[in-house]
């Protein structure tokens, strides 16, 4: 997966580059609008992360130039929480936007959503260790034993299982499970995770649902030593 980051703020550009590289992306960075426009047009990328406020030419004109030639997915980063910026970005062909300050996990989730869109059909059966999930029948088993999950608990499990090994932020989970697309500081997600855990992990080994403090939750098999407290 190849991604271009167009961002002039050095610290932001650096951590994005490192973070995405560690997520397995091949990352190019352009540090102003002119470079960004040039690279976006000359090379092939799977997705472009584009800051709105750039020296040289601003993000909108980069987007404009890009859309005349290519349909590469673009996520805009807007510093101002201004609706007109967002509306303008989406109208001129951006596929998604994030308002600064945004969380890195959020960005990763959006990037995956954008690149997944083109990947097509997903499997209907998921399997992690002894956990087995039938997405169509909305049923789950562990160790051959049926798990008695409510609708929301199943939705939470499915969301995590689909992105096995990825950390999902609370915001992303709230969006996927409850279709809540606003920041909310409720502990709904925590409670839901607690409930799911009591059915998924408490009776079985190994533990699959892990908390990453300050970041979110991940469903994966870990060796017990490296586990968080």
């Amino acid at each position, binding site marked *: 997966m190849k991604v271009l980051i167009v961002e002039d703020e050095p610290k932001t550009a650096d951590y994005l580059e490192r973070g995405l590289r560690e997520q397995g992306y091949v990352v190019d960075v352009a540090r102003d609008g002119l470079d960004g426009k040039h690279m976006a047009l000359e090379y092939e990328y799977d997705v472009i992360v584009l800051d709105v406020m750039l020296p040289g030419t601003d993000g909108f004109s980069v987007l404009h130039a890009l859309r005349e030639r290519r349909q590469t997915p673009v996520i805009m980063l807007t510093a101002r929480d201004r609706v007109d910026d967002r509306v303008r970005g989406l109208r001129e062909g951006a596929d998604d936007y994030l308002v600064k300050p945004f969380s890195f996990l959020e960005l990763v989730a959006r990037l995956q959503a954008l690149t997944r869109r083109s990947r097509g059909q997903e499997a209907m059966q998921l399997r992690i260790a002894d956990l087995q999930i039938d997405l169509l029948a909305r049923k789950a088993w562990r160790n051959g034993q049926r798990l008695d999950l409510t609708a929301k608990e199943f939705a939470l499990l499915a969301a995590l299982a689909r992105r096995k090994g990825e950390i999902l932020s609370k915001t992303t989970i709230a969006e996927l499970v409850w279709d809540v697309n*606003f920041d*909310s500081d409720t502990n709904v997600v925590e409670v839901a995770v607690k409930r799911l855990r009591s059915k998924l992990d408490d009776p079985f080994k190994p533990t699959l649902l892990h908390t990453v403090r300050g970041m979110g939750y991940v469903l994966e098999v870990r060796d017990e030593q490296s586990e968080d407290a």
Partner: protein
Amino acid sequence: MKLSISKRLAAMFAVASFVMLAVLSVAMHGLLKRELERHQSNELQARWTMYKPIIMRNDDVEHWEYVRTKFDNSISENNRVSLWVQSNDSRFLYGSSLTDEQRHMIGTRGFGQAMLPGHDAPLKTYSAEVEARGERPAVLLTVGIDSKPFVETLRAFTVGLIALTVVGALGAAGLGYYIARVGMRPLDRLSGEARGLSPGHLSRRLQTDTLAPELSELADSFNGALSRLETAYQQLEAFNADVAHELRTPLGNLIGQTQVTLSRERSVTELKEALHSNLEDLERLRAIVNDMLFLARADRGERAPNRVEVSIAQEVSHAVEYLEFIFEEAGVKVRIEGDAQASIETSLFRRAVTNLLQNAVQHAPRGAEIVVFVLQQPGAIRVSVQNTGSGIAREHLSRLFDRFYRVDSSRSGSRENHGLGLAIVRAVATMHGGTVFAESESGATTIGFTVAA
């Protein structure tokens, strides 16, 4: 080019007085002309009556010579006067020869006029028949007088009137300009005062007690605008202080924690722990900043941009569904009463309702029931969340919706509650053209908002 009000007024005065004087002058000119003409006619008739007996008394050819001498004398005495006697009998004639045209102009009866060579004003005439007597046939006696004095009088008068009109208009302009300047003086004073206003003296106002009624209204509106500005300015200052205060706690934690962690060699686990803890504080900062940005949008007067027509009860039930686990944990039930259709931005609306429900569940005792009322009112839809519990003291009610305001001030800077929940409810209401309200009586607290229908 923009003319000053004084100059404009002066010009208007000038035009007005010019028109008035011009009309007056035309009328006076007409009057004088008529009078002069009447005077001329009287003189002509008087002279005709004076000359007629001379012809009457002499009725044969011998005496006609006498008539001629008499007329000649008369004319040489008064060179303004001309005389003609016309008749079919060539023996009874008098006066210079006339061209056909002149004869035609003079006519045979009554008044006429003719241009004579050597005169620059026309000759006014009066003609009438003198009946036949003896040898003399009926003759036509014409008296003419030179109108030059009349014409000259009229001309002098006209010149005088024109001069008067022009000078009068100019005078009016000058006077008008002066009067306007005097009238404008309070305005000058006012703008001088307005120049003296500055952010440093926000409470200063324009003086209105000595102003004319027209201006004091303007000054009052201006003062009203100043008051609103002052309030906004003060809110902004308080706001900055609030934000700084709220951010100080997590920032302090972050700096302190990081310094402590770095002051010794630490194991990977300890370092990880520190980073996780930092991340929590940072997430909190981010949440606060995002909320502040959201509130700023409402403060700027932004309206909810993506509205759709939906059932309010249904939107409320979405929010209830989201918080379902929380209600179960807290052992409370939620009921929705009433419904209405309204055009709202659903994500904003759900956020507001979520905040209200969250507050209610935090303050309701175990086993309680929370009721959400949806009420259709004229022009607005009212959404309120009611819960039992210890209630809110009266003095807090009005400030509940202020940002960072918490009833229990010891909770300020707390990890869980930022004190922004109700401020966001108010912002959402504002963005939908509505307001907020809160009441707390005999153990039941009702807090809610309206959206414009």
